[in-house]
């Protein structure tokens, strides 16, 4: 299938900066997939995300959303409508005093007729499980709830891709779980393409594909089990690997599995 987002040899340097933030990134994201991008602070993963909806434009190279070149200013709204972006701090992306008014913000900007906005808002709030809170004031919600409202605000645009730039970095464990479960469900049940930028290893385990970034380049790309099995590489990058992988690696066993059960089975076999 044609990729939904395609990076072609993308380089990026901030106009006033000297260091190159992205150094030749090639990446294709397949529709309906759940892609996690893992990396340290300063690895360029947030910069990568901001290229996906034309907030940043490549210094050289191209980014395509479907067939649209992000550098084409006349297609800007079309690109941003297709690629919804959720950011780290929920407080700084909620624009209204009432949950449902906030969710309505994007479709209002797009000039959607009133009745359809109403339907989209209700549908989006149901998808993230925040429908009962539609009349609440956002500042009285918990972090995880606020972030789900932010996701609903993006879903109301009916995007094809959901890009989440460290959506859990400011949340407590409970909120983190809420957000990851919501996103995973959207991908598995609604077929939404999800790009999750994170530095929490645990959040990547459920993804279809894991991309590891370091110093502006992609250093590993594959299924989470494949990527995590490169234990030395991950350690060199200062990233964690799941406990199961670590145990299997130390025992010198094949590390193709992330599941606790099969890990236990492998160890039991070795002992026998």
């Amino acid at each position, binding site marked *: 299938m044609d990729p939904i987002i395609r990076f072609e040899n993308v380089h990026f340097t901030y106009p006033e900066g000297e260091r190159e933030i992205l150094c030749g990134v090639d990446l294709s994201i397949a529709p309906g997939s759940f892609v996690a991008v893992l990396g340290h602070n300063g690895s360029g993963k947030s910069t990568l995300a901001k290229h996906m909806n034309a907030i940043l434009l490549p210094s050289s190279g191209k980014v395509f959303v479907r067939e649209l070149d992000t550098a084409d200013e006349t297609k800007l709204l079309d690109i941003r409508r297709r690629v919804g972006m959720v*950011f780290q701090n929920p407080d700084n992306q909620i624009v209204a005093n009432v949950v449902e008014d906030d969710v309505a913000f994007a479709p209002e900007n797009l000039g959607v007729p009133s009745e359809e906005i109403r339907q989209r808002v209700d549908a989006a709030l149901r998808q993230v499980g925040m429908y009962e809170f539609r009349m609440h004031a956002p500042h009285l919600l918990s972090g995880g709830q606020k972030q789900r409202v932010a996701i609903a605000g993006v879903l109301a645009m009916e995007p094809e891709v959901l890009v989440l730039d460290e959506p859990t970095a400011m949340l407590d464990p409970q909120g983190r779980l809420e957000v990851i479960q919501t996103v995973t469900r959207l991908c598995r049940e609604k077929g939404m393409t999800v790009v999750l930028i994170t530095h929490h290893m645990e959040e990547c385990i459920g993804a279809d594909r894991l991309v590891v970034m370091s110093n502006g380049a992609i250093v590993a790309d594959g299924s989470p089990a494949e990527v995590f099995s490169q234990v030395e590489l991950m350690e060199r990058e200062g990233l964690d690997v799941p406990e199961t992988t670590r145990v299997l690696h130390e025992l010198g066993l094949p590390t193709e599995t992330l599941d606790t059960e099969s890990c236990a089975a492998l160890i039991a076999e070795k002992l026998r």
Partner: protein
Amino acid sequence: MLKDVTLGQYFPGNTVVHRLDPRTKILLLIFFIVALFTAKGWVGYGVMVLVTAASMAASHISPKNIFKGLKPMIFIIVFTAALNLFYTDGTPVLPGWPITWEGAARGAQMILRIILLIAGTFLLTYTTSPMALTDGMERLLSPLKKIGLPIHEITMMMSMALRFIPTLIEETDKIMSAQKARGADFENGNLLQRAKALLPILVPLFVSSFRRADELAVAMESRCYHGGSGRTRMKQLHFAPRDLWALLLGAVLVAGMFVLKHFGL
């Protein structure tokens, strides 16, 4: 202490007053203010008190909430009343006293006027969601777009400011606690020292506000915000028959006050 800021607060409800179009309510407030400043005698003030009380009853807003909002204004109210009390010519209450009967009456009327003014304004913000309020204002002011005033941008800024009041209050509380934990003292000292003590709160608050504004702008752009052109609304404003009646009542009130003024009541 910062928790009881009532500015821009909204009490959701489903009364007639809540259901009125925000444009009607803004116009009614203007009528109300005109009528209030037309009032001259005790009869006029009496009518205004009755009108305010009736509107409060109709919107199920308890006087307690209005008085809570009045608290920060007490100084101004007392100050204005005192000025009027001492600086009005007329018959002294007691021979040789600087206080006159006329002054006492003027002072009392001033207090009443300020209280009613604030109560009327609060009735508007308490019964209208900030979104509806700014939307109504945008529509009412839209003729000014013709002469090149950025009405959409102004009302958008207003609604953002209202949206961020609670967030910034929360943040101020947090910074205050952090500075207190490092030994900052906000309660003691003279006025100048206390004002100086606020500096370590204002600087981080400013810095973080700029960062917030930056992030908010990116988030808004990501949600396809591109100014006011081509924007639609989920909640459209409807001008119902009850709005017409309400405006008529408002006009009658203003006319009535002018008549009362004419007769010096």
